[in-house]
């Protein structure tokens, strides 16, 4: 039975781990593509080629090693992003650029295909298994030189011809904090914020109040049922406020018991406790494992 439980737990753990990995790689998006690079970004060799920008649309670092980039629907494993290169890790909400120059010998970020401006270019990113599609896009034919095609919002939004080319940076950059400016413009006195926020604070605590009012009622009823049973068993009458006794009553009883025990056993070293002494076993709390074995002298 224990083995079964352990096995189930292990299975869940494995599934969770795979799920977590999948969730991370699927957050990568193809973000921007430049098909005709005449007077734009140059690579480390000083050459201009088409490029594909990927964007990590998550709050965690994603490692692209082992994933596949392709321009062929029938061949998802066309270019494997090499393993062992630390630069394949994309930090949260950041970008990485691949050069479509058909020269993979130039390094990790040079793929083994190129983009053709005269036809639709299919580009896809596959997970390390080579079958799970992470993201794909078809860049329409006839792209103009040095004008990129990308998402209007990084990692989301619609594909469109972008007004400015932004290799390895955000497609959209904000010159201001829109939220704050909105408050400055529409709520210069802060009344709106006060009303909204206080309403939410009150709402949260009112809901908590209502829930615990009901839980309290249920607890009092349960205590009354127990008191009723105890009264029936002992043949006494149940007290009117059974289940709602104040802590002061119990404190007074405890103090009286303690004093009684103190008076009667003033010489003995007794301690009155209401602490539960029975403990459930756990290897973490077991002293057995922290004890040193007694050395045995071999004769």
């Amino acid at each position: 039975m224990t083995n079964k439980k352990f096995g189930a737990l292990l299975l869940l753990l494995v599934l969770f781990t795979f799920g977590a990995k999948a969730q991370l790689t699927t957050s990568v998006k193809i973000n921007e593509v430049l098909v005709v690079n005449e007077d734009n970004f140059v690579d480390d060799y000083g050459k201009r080629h088409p490029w594909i920008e990927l964007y990590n649309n998550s709050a965690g670092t994603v490692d692209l090693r082992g994933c596949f980039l392709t321009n062929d629907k029938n061949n998802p494993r066309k270019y494997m992003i090499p393993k062992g290169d630390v630069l394949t890790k994309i930090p949260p909400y950041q970008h990485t650029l691949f050069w479509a120059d058909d020269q993979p010998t130039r390094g990790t970020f040079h793929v083994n295909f190129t983009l053709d401006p005269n036809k639709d270019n299919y580009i896809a990113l596959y997970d390390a298994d080579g079958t799970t599609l992470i993201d794909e896009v078809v860049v329409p034919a006839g792209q103009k030189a040095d004008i990129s095609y990308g998402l209007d919002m990084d990692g989301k939004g619609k594909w469109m011809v972008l007004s400015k080319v932004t290799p390895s940076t955000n497609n959209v950059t904000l010159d201001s904090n829109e939220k704050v400016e909105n408050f400055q413009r529409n709520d210069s006195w802060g009344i709106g914020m006060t009303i909204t926020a206080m309403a939410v604070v009150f709402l949260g605590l009112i809901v908590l109040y209502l829930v615990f009012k009901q839980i309290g009622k249920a607890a009092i009823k349960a205590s009354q049922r127990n008191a009723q049973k105890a009264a029936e068993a002992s043949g006494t009458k149940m007290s009117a406020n059974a289940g709602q006794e104040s802590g002061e009553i119990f404190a007074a009883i405890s103090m009286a018991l303690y004093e009684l025990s103190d008076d009667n056993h003033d010489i003995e070293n007794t301690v009155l406790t209401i602490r539960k002494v029975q403990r459930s076993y756990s290897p973490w709390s077991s002293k057995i494992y922290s004890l040193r074995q007694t050395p045995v002298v071999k004769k």
Partner: protein
Amino acid sequence: MLASVLLQAAAGANESFMQFLAENIQVFLSYTGFANATPGHFIMLLVGLLFIFLAIKYEFEPMLLIPIGFGILIGNIPFKDAGLQLGIYEEGSVLNILYQGVKQGWYPPLIFLGIGAMTDFSALISNPKLMLVGAAAQFGIFGAYIIALQMGFDPSQAGAIGIIGGADGPTAIFLSSKLAPNLMGAIAVSAYSYMALVPIIQPPFMRLLTTQKERLIRMKPPRVVSQTEKIMFPIVGLLLTAFLVPSGLPLLGMLFFGNLCKESGVTRRLAETARGPLIDVITMLLGVTVGASTQATQFLTINSIKIFGLGALSFVIATCAGVLFVKFFNLFLKEGNKINPLIGNSGVSAVPDAARISQNVGLEYDPSNYLLMHAMGPNVAGVIGSAVAAGILLGFLG
């Protein structure tokens, strides 16, 4: 002839050696605190000494004021900026590394873990309507927010300043590190200073806003709360509040987790660590680094003075809002169920100081009316309320 040449050479060598020594001493002196001190440094050193004095002489929140006060001394020792990685703002320095817990906002949730593990929510569970008092006192936050806006702070800064009114140091640090990192030192010191000064700030307003009759109201003793209810509280509390305000998750999550460790009865070791060694260590680091972050060059600005003024005002507003809300609430409660408005002040989350003030002021008017347990209800509700308010501000302005 040879002797005189040797003597001249020795004299020359001696002279250059003496010059070398003098230059060295001059360089050394230029590195000392005396050579680099400014009036600002001395002002801040006096502030640090004042904090230490208040903590030792009057026992005003000594756990906070001693580390912060000493931190102010550490942070305001003048030195020459020579890339020696000494100051708290120099990347890679020891103080800077310790300061990351404040800057990145991970000390406050750990403090909340400890607070959760030491808080008994029984008073609140037995009389859940007291939660509303904790909500009302959050007006202090937004009152200060409104005034800060009028004083020219932008909404993010105003939100960070307003949170001082929550009377919750960790929450103030957490929020200001996200919304206005440049004001964090002043906000943190202001929040902790006023938390230490609640025995001075609150009682006059409590007396001013209540009548003799109201101060004598006796409340029903709280009923005994079952362990099941105590276990359910952190779970239900987390689910309800965090679903409503997910941005408050770091604080609320740790607060309720700590409380579950305490109430579950099976993780006593975890609870004891959280409310003992862990919170002690974090309190020390947080206090010292917050204090050290008040370097005169960064701290002594007009904005800091404004923040101190707004902080005091926010505490006053929070106290008044709590007391007045109880008076208003009493209009709808039956005789016998009424709440003593003297516990309204404890809606601010300075636990347990604010509750202790309710008790002390209550005892002044009726020596047998013990309000402490009742005041603990709104007091701990204030912790939840201020964390929720911080989450809202972060959500709107972050």
